[in-house]
C-alpha cells in the first residue's frame, strides 16, 4: 500500500517522528505490530525496513499512524528526507502485538533509545483501558544527548532517566536501575514489565523478571528479509518448555527439531512481541 506522509519531524539528534495517513486502510495496527517500509527507490538500500507502530491517532474521518525512528544507515537516512504529501510504500500491520492485560495496577516500561517507540503505543493502550494504572517509564541511553522524548513520556506516567555515563539521571544501565527501584521498594515486586532495546539488556531484564516474579513482555528487533514469513531470516531460538500461545496472538511459524528439543521462531510472524521468559537469550547471543 502507498500511504501519504502527513509529517516527518526531527525530534532530537538523529531521531524523527513520521506520520502517515492510513485512513484508506481497513486494517488498523495494535501496539507492538509493525510496518515494513520501502526506504529508497533504487536497489541500494535493497530490503524494506521494519518500524513498529508508535502511535495511532484517530480523528474525525482520518487515521494517523506515527512511527518513531533513529537514522542509523542508508535506509533511515532516505526516510528522514521524505516530505509531507510524498507517498511511502509500506506493508502492514504485521506480526503479533502486546497482550494488554486487564486490571493491572503497576507497570514498568523499560526502554533504551529508540526502543521507546512501541512501548509508547502500549502505554497509551494501557491508559485507555484503565485510567488508574501507574505507569513507570525507565528511559535512557549511552549519554545525555541520546536521551529524548522526556516531555512526551511524562504524559504516560512517572519517568526515570538513566545514562551509562551518568550525564543525566541514574548512572548506570536500565537493568541496574530497575533492580535498584525494586530492591528499594520504590517499585512494587510483581509489577508488569514491558521492554524494548538491545538483546543483552533484555536478557538481564528477563533474569530480574524471574527473580521478582514480574510478568513480562518484550518487543524484539532483528534484520528481516521480507517481514511476512517467507524468507526465514529473522529466526530466533525459544525455550521449548516456556512457549506460550495466548489469545489473540498465535505462533504460526515455530519450527521444531525432530526430537522436540530445539525450536526456532520467526520474529516477523510469531513476534515481534514475546513473553520475556520464552526467548532463549543465551543461545541467541552465543
Amino acid at each position, binding site marked *: 500500500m502507498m500511504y501519504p506522509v502527513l509529517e516527518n519531524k526531527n525530534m532530537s539528534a538523529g531521531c524523527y517522528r513520521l506520520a502517515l495517513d492510513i485512513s484508506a486502510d481497513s486494517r488498523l495496527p495494535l501496539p507492538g505490530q509493525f510496518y515494513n517500509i520501502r526506504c529508497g527507490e533504487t536497489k541500494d538500500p*535493497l530490503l524494506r525496513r521494519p518500524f513498529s507502530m508508535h502511535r495511532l491517532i484517530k480523528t474525525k474521518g482520518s487515521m494517523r499512524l506515527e512511527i518513531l525512528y533513529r537514522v542509523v544507515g542508508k535506509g533511515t537516512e532516505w526516510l528522514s528526507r521524505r516530505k509531507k504529501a510524498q507517498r511511502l510504500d509500506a506493508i502492514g500491520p504485521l506480526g503479533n502485538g502486546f497482550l494488554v492485560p486487564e486490571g493491572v495496577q503497576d507497570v514498568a516500561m523499560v526502554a533504551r533509545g529508540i526502543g521507546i517507540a512501541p512501548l509508547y503505543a502500549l502505554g497509551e493502550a494501557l491508559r485507555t483501558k484503565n485510567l488508574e494504572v501507574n505507569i513507570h517509564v525507565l528511559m535512557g541511553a549511552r549519554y545525555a544527548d541520546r536521551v529524548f522524548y522526556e516531555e512526551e513520556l511524562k504524559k504516560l506516567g512517572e519517568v526515570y532517566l538513566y545514562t551509562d555515563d551518568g550525564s543525566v539521571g541514574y548512572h548506570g544501565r536500565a537493568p541496574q536501575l530497575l533492580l535498584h527501584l525494586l530492591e528499594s521498594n520504590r517499585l512494587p515486586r510483581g509489577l508488569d514489565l514491558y521492554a524494548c532495546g538491545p538483546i543483552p539488556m533484555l536478557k538481564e531484564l528477563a533474569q530480574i523478571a524471574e527473580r521478582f516474579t514480574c510478568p513480562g513482555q518484550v518487543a524484539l528487533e*532483528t*534484520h528481516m*528479509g521480507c517481514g511476512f514469513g517467507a524468507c526465514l531470516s529473522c529466526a530466533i531460538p525459544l525455550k521449548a518448555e516456556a512457549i506460550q500461545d495466548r489469545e489473540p496472538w498465535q505462533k504460526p511459524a515455530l519450527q521444531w527439531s525432530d526430537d522436540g528439543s530445539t525450536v*526456532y521462531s520467526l520474529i516477523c510472524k510469531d513476534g515481534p512481541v514475546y513473553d520475556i521468559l520464552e526467548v532463549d537469550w543465551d*543461545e*541467541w547471543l552465543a
Partner: protein
Amino acid sequence: MNGSPDLSVQIGGLQLKNPVMPASGTFGYGEEYTDFLDLSRLGAVIVKTITLKPRTGSYPHRSTEVASGFLASIGLQNVGVEHFLREKLPYFDGIDVPLIVNIGGQSVEEYVALATIMNAQRRVNALELNISCPNVSKGGMHFGIDPEVTRELVTRVRAVTEKTVIVKLTPMVSDIRLFAEVCQEAGADSLSLINAPLGMSVDVKTRRSKLGRNMKGGLTGPAIKPLALYLVHQVSKSVDIPVIGIGGISSPEDALEFFIVGASAVQVGTWNFINPRITIEIIQGLHEYLSEHKIRAFRELVGTLL
C-alpha cells in the same frame, strides 16, 4: 497482431502458461503470498527445499544486507517431508498452477527417498534438486561441486521418478558447463541457475561475521545478476535441455535479458521480499514488451543474443 502474445513454454513434461516463477526459498510454501497475489497466474510455484526430517536451520543472525544484495544463511529450515505432505501440499488443491517441489538431502539415498515419495504425489508436477547441500558422506562437501557425485545423484533420482526433474546448479565451480552436461547426460529435463554464490560480510567494530556463527551466507539480489546472466549464457549454449535463469531479477527488463542470453524461463527470488507482487508485474511487463515489439511468442526471443 491478433490476440495477446504467447508466453507459454514447455519445461520437460511441464506446460507452463508463462515463463515466470518464484525461486525456491523466497516463496515459503506458497501460502505466505496469498494476501498479495493469485498463485494461479504464475508459470509455476516452487516451494522451499524439503528434506526428509524437519530442520530448524541456521543459528540466529541469519541475514544482512550488502550493496544491492541480500546475504543470508537459512540452513534449509523446513517442516520436513511428512509435515509438508500433510499440512502444506493440500493448500494447492484447487489452485490451477504447476507445482515444483525443491528437495535436498545429506546423502544420495535421502534424495532418492524424497524423489520416490514425491513421485507418488499427484499434485507434485516436478522436482527441483537442490544440489548445493552438504554431503555428509563426503565430509560436508556440497554435492554440486563434484561432477561424479552430481552424475550419480541425478541418475539415481531419474531412475525413481517420471516427474520432470530440474537440477539447480551452483555457480561455485570452475566450469559450470561440465556440470550442465553431466546433468543432461544423467537424464535431467531442465537446469535452473544460479543458486546463490557464497559470500561474507564483517562487522569491523567487533571483527565478527555479520552472520554470527554462520560466518558465510548465500548472496542473492541484484548484485548477482551479471554473474547469473553470464553463466546462463554459457550453459544454454552447451546443453539442449531448457535452462531456467535465476539471479537478481527485479523487473520485466531483467527477465528479458535472461531470455535473450538463452533462458527458457526465469525464477524471481529476493525481489519477492521487496515487492511481493513482482512476479505478476513481470508477467504483465512481458506482455507489454512483446505486444510493443510485435513478437508473437516469447520463445522467439530465447537465445537471440547477437
